[in-house]
């Protein structure tokens, strides 16, 4: 399979890249890891006139934790770097759980988190993880930078709110105010397949009480689902069998799964419930062990 013809530019600065996108007038597309875009080009679902390859812009290649505890993921940070990051293991349990489950090991060497958010596939894992964590996408265009909550960034299946001359330059995960805990579980038929169901849970606790909780769902609706109500029901409470059960119930209700070759709608909803219980129970088990 071959992409249709396009012109190709590989600028070495962000300003040049933005100029090229601007000049492209909506017919240019940004190429980062290419693990979603190149297949789309080959299938001719996408046929841009120009590709602006940002891989030579060294300033976009970073993964950094700021002194305030926020995590900054540059547009060229690959999944594999996240998978091997000691920062994630130490401070970002939800992301650390998700990183090894993205696509397959070879795709992870090229693909990027920021690109995955831009691609806005309803079955993309990172969008759920970043939604559960309350993360943001920073976009840069000719008129400067703006920061967009990920829930507002994705506007529909395979759609985001970037203007044609804006580049998503980084994703920011805010610092946890309490003790961060969480997880990501994904049911897939085999490695590299799209998620049948994915569940991201990110909570912060102070003492026994949950101070913040985010729950988001992959693959069970037309876009990433923010099960905000399920998260809210945990806030101000301790994790007990009852509170966990009610969060799981609300998350299952928030899912909008469709019956397909990966499973029935009822089955997928059941898996959402099970995964929420499993992630939260693991957190309580770990705290009890530590105590």
């Amino acid at each position, binding site marked *: 399979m071959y992409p249709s013809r396009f012109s190709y530019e590989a600028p070495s600065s962000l300003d040049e890249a933005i100029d090229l996108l601007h000049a492209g007038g909506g017919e240019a597309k940004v190429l980062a890891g290419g*693990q979603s875009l190149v297949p789309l080009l080959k299938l001719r679902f996408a046929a841009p006139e120009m*590709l602006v390859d940002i891989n030579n812009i060294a300033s976009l290649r970073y993964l950094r934790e700021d002194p305030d505890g926020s995590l900054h993921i540059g547009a060229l940070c690959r999944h594999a770097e996240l998978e091997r990051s000691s920062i994630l293991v130490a401070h970002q349990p939800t992301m650390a759980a998700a990183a090894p489950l993205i696509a397959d*090991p070879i795709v992870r060497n090229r693909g990027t988190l920021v690109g995955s958010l831009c691609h806005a596939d309803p079955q993309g894992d990172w969008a759920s993880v970043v939604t559960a964590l309350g993360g943001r996408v920073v976009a840069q265009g000719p008129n400067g930078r703006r920061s967009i909550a990920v829930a507002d960034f994705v506007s529909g299946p395979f759609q985001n709110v970037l203007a044609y001359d804006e580049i998503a330059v980084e994703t920011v995960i805010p610092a946890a105010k309490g003790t961060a805990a969480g997880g990501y579980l994904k049911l897939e038929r085999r490695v*590299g397949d799209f998620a049948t169901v994915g569940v991201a849970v990110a909570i912060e606790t102070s003492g026994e009480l949950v101070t913040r909780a985010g729950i988001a769902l992959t693959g069970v609706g037309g876009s990433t689902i923010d099960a905000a109500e399920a998260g809210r029901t945990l806030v101000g409470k301790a994790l007990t069998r009852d509170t966990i059960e009610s969060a799981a119930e609300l998350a299952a209700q928030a899912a909008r799964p469709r019956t397909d070759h990966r499973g029935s709608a009822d089955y997928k909803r059941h898996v959402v419930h099970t995964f929420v219980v499993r992630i939260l129970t693991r957190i309580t088990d770990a705290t009890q062990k530590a105590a």
Partner: protein
Amino acid sequence: MSSLYEEIRPEPASDVPVRRVTITLNGEKRVAEVEPRLLLAHLIRQGFRLTGTHTGCDTSNCGACTVLFDGKAIKSCTMLAVQADGHEVTTVEGLATASELHPVQEGFKDEHGLQCGFCTPGMMLAATALLRENPDPTEDEVRWALSGNLCRCTGYQNIVKSVLWAAKKLQSQSASAE
């Protein structure tokens, strides 16, 4: 070969804009003029006539087209040839020397790690990348590292054995070199 293959061979029609790329392929500098839409897998196979890199699914699933790009395993059907400009690419042809097989190749031979052989080049490159990063992997780690490469013949058992065999061989080589 279909006519489309002909149409975007590395020597495209004169009215199509091309870019000159310089790639260090298996340690040797190679130059080609390519259309931006040419995929790296096709430059390697049709342009440089190295047909050890296979194109299987053509949808970044199967890993038959795996090559090393600056030492990291990537799927060459999912990268543009122009993106390899200035980079190092290793294909299966770059593993053996004139006189000796690479230990990973020896392992596949010794442990019967292949049947039809279609997935084998990709498997061997993914395994080579693994053993550089982790010279003493467990069986689980080998299976994990190869989970982006599909084999429809072997059931993977002997592939995993081959990689573990190669790990031992590489370890004994580096021990005797010390």
